[in-house]
């Protein structure tokens, strides 16, 4: 009897071995390699320097941290449009006169609390208020920007010189690499562990892939959803610290359109907008592709219009290269 049943899953088991890490992101690596090739060809002296690499990573750091949070939300079946605005709000709040009184540590904590708080509100609206994520976070986007403008009186707030420790994140280098790149790397590693090695991560896939199944398996889908948005907000708070470091300011204009960039990076990285599938590594690779494109343009002094056209084409080509990963299961 037992043997008779053997055929049920034999074929798939052999033919469909889980795609290994390298294979899954092959397309992305190819795209990256091509871009690097272009860089080496067009600007050999400027592109391949350690300095330029550091510059690319510094540029990617802020939005990279946000992308980690966005990956969680999207794998969990949601979307967070408010990331840029929440980061702006956190940066403004942390640089108000009142906050700056208390020194850099309190400023950092303030940014993180504001970010997490806004994320929590998103989470409550989506999970318990049952608002569609797109709308709830759009409302947050709008409101957070408004609030940031109000708090800052639409002015750019400088980090005071006695709180220079914040800015040091961008200027102090260890082994030639600014501290904020380390922060970025740390967030990526922690995000990866959380997603791949903890029950929280497993459940995120379940909640996004089949919420009804997750619920029936005894997962508190609402609470989990709420936590995902809070996590995204937390990342925005950390990103706020980084942007304060890089720009030495808090401003309501920070992070404009970050939401589109972050979501695009996540999707290019192979995460499905419908949830349930995706990887942190893919998202970060997707983001690096975007960042390197920009860097290449800067190095080559292309004019803006042509840059935009080229960027559109490159995105299409990059994604076609890894089409196999992205194609939906429908025809």
């Amino acid at each position, binding site marked *: *009897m*037992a043997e*008779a*049943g*053997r*055929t*049920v*899953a*034999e*074929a*798939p*088991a052999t*033919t*469909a071995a*889980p795609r290994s890490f390298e294979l899954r992101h092959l397309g992305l690596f190819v795209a990256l390699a091509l871009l690097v090739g272009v860089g080496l060809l067009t600007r050999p002296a400027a592109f391949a320097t350690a300095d330029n690499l550091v510059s690319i990573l510094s540029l990617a750091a802020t939005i990279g941290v946000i992308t980690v949070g966005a990956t969680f939300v999207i794998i969990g079946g949601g979307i967070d449009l408010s990331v840029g605005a929440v980061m702006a709000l956190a940066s403004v709040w942390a640089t108000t006169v009142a906050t700056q009184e208390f020194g850099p540590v309190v400023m950092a904590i303030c940014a993180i609390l504001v970010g997490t708080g806004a994320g929590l509100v998103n989470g409550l609206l989506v999970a318990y208020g049952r608002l569609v994520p797109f709308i709830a976070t759009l409302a947050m986007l709008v409101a957070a920007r408004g609030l940031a403008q109000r708090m800052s009186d639409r002015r750019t707030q400088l980090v005071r010189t006695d709180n220079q420790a914040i800015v040091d994140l961008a200027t102090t280098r260890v082994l030639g690499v600014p501290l904020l790149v380390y922060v970025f790397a740390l967030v990526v590693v922690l995000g990866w562990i959380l997603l791949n*090695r*903890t*029950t*929280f*991560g*497993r*459940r995120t*896939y*379940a909640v*996004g*892939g*089949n919420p*009804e*199944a*997750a*619920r*029936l*398996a*005894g*997962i*508190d889908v609402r609470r989990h959803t709420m936590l995902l948005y809070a996590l995204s907000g937390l990342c925005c708070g950390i990103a706020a610290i980084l942007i304060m470091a890089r720009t030495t300011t808090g401003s309501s204009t920070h992070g404009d359109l970050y939401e589109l960039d972050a979501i695009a990076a996540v999707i290019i990285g192979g995460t499905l907008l419908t949830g*349930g*599938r995706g990887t942190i590594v893919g998202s970060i690779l997707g983001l690096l592709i975007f960042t390197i494109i920009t860097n290449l343009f800067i190095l080559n002094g292309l004019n803006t219009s042509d840059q935009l056209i080229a960027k559109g084409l490159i995105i299409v080509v990059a994604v076609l290269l890894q089409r196999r990963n992205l194609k939906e299961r429908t025809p």
Partner: protein
Amino acid sequence: MLVMRGIVKQFPGVRALDGVDLDVRAGEVHCLLGQNGAGKSTLIKVLAGAHRPDEGTIELNGVPAAPAGPVDAIRLGIATIYQELDLVDGLTVADNIFLGHEHARLGFTDRRAANRAAGEVLTRLGHPEIRPSTEVGRLPPAAKQIVSMARALSREARLIVMDEPSAALAHDEVANLFRIIRDLTARGVAVVYISHRMEEIREIGDRVTVLKDGRTIAVGLPARDTPTSEIVSLMTGRDVEYVFPPRAARPPGEEVLRVEDLSSPGAFAGVSFSVRAGEIVGLAGLVGSGRSEILEAVYGARRATGQVLVGGRPVRRAGLLRSVRRDGPLRALRRGGVVESVRLGMGLAPEERKAQALLLDQSVTANITLGGLSGFARLGWLDRARERAEATRLAEALDIRPRDPERPVKTLSGGNQQKAVLARWLLGGRRLLLLDEPTRGVDVGARAELYTVIRRLAEDGIGVLLVSSEVPEVLGLADRVLVLREGTVIHQGDARDLDEHRVLDMIMNGRAA
């Protein structure tokens, strides 16, 4: 051990449960029977905490225990295998099995332990070949069903509820399932078992509760000694003869389909056969023997090498059974052309109704007419009155309940959803129907009606290619039978020359008759 009393569950517009009682004893297999839509799934969802009952009490071992949610039910020792597969495609087999109670320390998962434990459960289920690290989305339906079972078994449950676990399983798998159930009951675990297959009830069941229209109408009947006819008449309120309609006297007409040397790597190879007008051809084989794949390839929905030749274009005329032009030469089907297949008069009722056939949010009408929309339109403009009339007629013919063609399909019970899938291709204008497990989840009464309908279609000159995991069904309904084993046809011949035993022998042991 479990006592449910006066359970009432109201959905918008439907009283799905209207005072149901259920008693289950420890160590027994308690069968729950009832027509499609009787309320079986709803009842067990109440039991599993997935639905909150509007009225009624639940007692477990004499203690009131109304699960407030799935977590609660699990804690009370109730594990459930749901009718609709409830797995997460993006996660591995092991992750799915332990979802909600992961092997973890301080939130960190122990992947190796989980894989080991999953492997153990799967081995216990007789399927060591399902690898714990495989992504569930890549498994065929039967394997998913096994994973669902593994998941229920992985909980230390005192009561396991199985909602039509055998619907996706073939004969040998069912035997395997029964072995496991006996195992469980021997250890004092109670099992609530739902199935529409009478012979299963007789084999495994201890006692039977019959539901009808949301009410209990019979409690604790002995499963082995109650005559089938009595149970069926309790369920349906009438006497149903569980027999197959007589075969046509007329010889079949000209070929409507010829398949030559069809192969698809990894699924099947060198398949050749033909279907004539008025003929029902059955495909028998184990789960995984490639039957669904053959249907899909014939339909143009899957890449394959070889040739598929299809009869001429049908005359489009709405009407249940009379609408096909019987002439026209065979023509080769372009590969990958479902659109062309449909235009040429083919229709496929696929295996997984939810994933492959239904628009869950849409009305019954919209689901039925989806395949033949242009038949109701002039220059793209829909004649909605005619559309609704046709759909209503078909819904009545197949007894789809509730009798409301505007109701969203997702609120129908599983069996009624299946009927809606079939109704789509009964709309008319078809020359060749490909039916993949058409009676999955359909109750006894409706099943007999379906058989009649399929036979009438054939009599009207339509060719039918039928896949079913129930060998008696294939033998009783088909004119000719193809027996498949591991992707190759090992026997092809008249159904009357075969019996169940010989077919089983062939598909299990590969011995040609």
